[in-house]
């Protein structure tokens, strides 16, 4: 067994543009996916996720670069000779065959004996909870059930790697959530490497061992969900994953662990952690997530306890929205900047709304390790 289940080495894919010229769908992508890993490709529409997956499956060939599956360079190996299987977004079930025949198709192609085929197909159908549905036609199943057939059809081949292109995209939200959990459990049970394409950041965060965030054909960051969320390496990733506030400023001072940024349009200074290399005077973006800020009144100040920490600022409440678990507050941070702040309603007070009245003058604080300093993109 080689080191990686799948490796993309400096892969580029260009398509001829119907209107002339070329489209670069994937731009120098390098990915290393471990054995047994649940790896997600995440990014907005058109960023090249499907193209990357199709190159691994063998439906497209890289313009340059090389793809390795279990250490073997794939070159122009056709799909039917690659040890990977795909679950298509449209499911791509064979409508003229029964569910059983659909699932058995791949085994038949391998020349597996009749008896073993029957056994393995039944086991696969049981695994996706479709026991007894074998004689139905795909159209006689619901969307979620068809999705499971597609899954069983691919898994029954016991591939080294399973490729999934937005497999839950066509399902409604509730079923989607259920299937997310099921898929994740299934992946752990069978131990197969999953490469999972999605544009849903929440889905990627909940299911993946690691995520590659893509934009415009480029792989921007690869990391565990926590890293991607807590330590994004650029403004795009910070913006695409979860919600955040951006502030703009200039680096004032640097010490090994922290950077002080003086914000544009106000006298205020923020202390945060540098995500990248910075020099004094550099223009930067500051990202602070809404749930990482605390609003408090001036009681501690009145009783003489000055908050002996940076990042404490007077603010004004603009409005609040109560959404049950949270209260979402928009504050005026000064200098024409508005920030979103989410507070969890851990107290069962009925007058939260009364607590923050629009126009009320309060304070906000944030810990320096939650203030992320990112390079300003060109």
């Amino acid at each position: 067994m080689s080191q990686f289940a799948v490796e993309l080495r400096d892969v580029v894919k260009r398509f001829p543009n119907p209107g002339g010229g070329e489209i670069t769908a994937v731009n120098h992508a390098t990915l290393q996916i471990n054995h047994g890993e649940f790896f997600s490709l995440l990014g907005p529409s058109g960023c090249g996720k499907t193209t990357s997956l199709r190159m691994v499956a063998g439906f497209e060939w890289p313009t340059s670069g090389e793809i390795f599956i279990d250490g073997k360079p794939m070159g122009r190996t056709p799909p039917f000779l690659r040890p990977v299987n795909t679950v298509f977004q449209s499911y791509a079930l064979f409508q003229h065959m029964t569910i059983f025949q659909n699932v058995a198709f791949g085994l038949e192609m391998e020349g597996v004996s009749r008896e073993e085929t029957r056994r393995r197909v039944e086991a696969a159908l049981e695994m996706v909870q479709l026991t007894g549905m074998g004689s139905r036609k795909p159209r006689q199943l619901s969307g979620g059930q068809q999705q499971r057939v597609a899954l069983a059809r691919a898994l029954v081949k016991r591939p080294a790697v399973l490729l999934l292109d937005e497999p839950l995209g066509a399902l409604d939200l509730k079923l989607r959530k259920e299937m997310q959990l099921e898929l994740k459990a299934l992946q752990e049970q069978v131990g197969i490497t999953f490469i999972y394409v999605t544009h849903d950041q929440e889905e990627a965060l909940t299911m993946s061992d690691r995520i590659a965030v893509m934009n415009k054909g480029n792989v921007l960051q690869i990391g565990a969900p926590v890293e991607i969320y807590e330590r994004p390496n650029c403004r795009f990733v910070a913006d695409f994953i979860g919600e955040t506030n951006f502030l703009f400023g200039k680096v004032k001072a640097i010490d090994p662990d922290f950077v002080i940024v003086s914000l544009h349009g106000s006298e205020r200074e923020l202390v945060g952690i540098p995500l990248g290399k910075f020099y004094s005077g550099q223009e930067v973006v500051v990202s602070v997530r809404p749930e990482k800020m605390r609003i408090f009144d001036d009681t501690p100040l009145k009783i003489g306890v000055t908050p002996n920490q940076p990042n404490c600022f007077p603010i004004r409440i603009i409005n609040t929205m109560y959404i049950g678990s949270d209260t979402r507050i928009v504050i005026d941070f000064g200098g024409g900047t508005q920030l979103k702040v989410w507070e969890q309603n851990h107290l069962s007070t009925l007058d939260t709304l009364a607590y923050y009245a629009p126009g009320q003058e309060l304070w906000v604080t944030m810990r320096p390790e939650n203030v992320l300093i990112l390079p300003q993109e060109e």
Partner: protein
Amino acid sequence: MSEKKPALWLRIYALLAYAYIYFPILILIIFSFNTQKINVRWEGFTLQWYKVLFNDQNVILATRNTLIIAFTSTIISTVIGTLAALALQRYRFPGYGAAESLLYVPVIIPEVVMGISLLAFFASIGLTLGLGTITLSHIAFNIPFVTLVVRARLHGFDKSIEEAAMDLGANELTTFWRVTLPTIMPGVLSGALLAFTLSLDDYVITYFTAGPGSTTLPLRIFSMVRFAVTPEVNALSTLWVLTVFIVLLIGQIAQRSQSPQQTR
């Protein structure tokens, strides 16, 4: 679907429309059983015209020719037409637009023109007119029709099922036989059915490309009715209508069993 009944006048209107189409055929069928030799008055019931028909060597020969031509040209034109439809669906190449439009020109140009040009062509390459030339001609005019019908079916064809088949280990050929063809089969069958009926009753092109001994049924009937429409022709036509009807019925049944029911 609601079970609402159409208004009375609509039903009468529809009935009249059907009568307009089928009444002449009904008359023809009735008179094929008439003892009277002239198609004007009903005299009495007889099967003698059918007997005459079954003993008419010329008719039997013409029937044989017609069926040979229809089957051969249907099979060949269905294969070629289907492949053309698949190619047009799958590939974009220089001259695509021209290839697409030129394919359908034979559907529009007058049959007489096509007949004459085929005759000229066969003469120029020195082919003897006969069953062979008729069959070649029928293949030629059937291909566009088959392609048209199959393309209609291919519209919205989900290419990912072919990719799925290959992904599961099927090579190109297996994918075609096991997945592509069964999926487009209803379209191919309708195309073949259309080609078969077109070939069965073609007169103009056949007339130009026929040689001695290759008379087909339409040609035979035309020569029989040159002087008068006899009950024998009525009988022949009746049998023909029946044949076409059965062919259509088989086609319908085949299609229904091919495309699974939408119902849950």
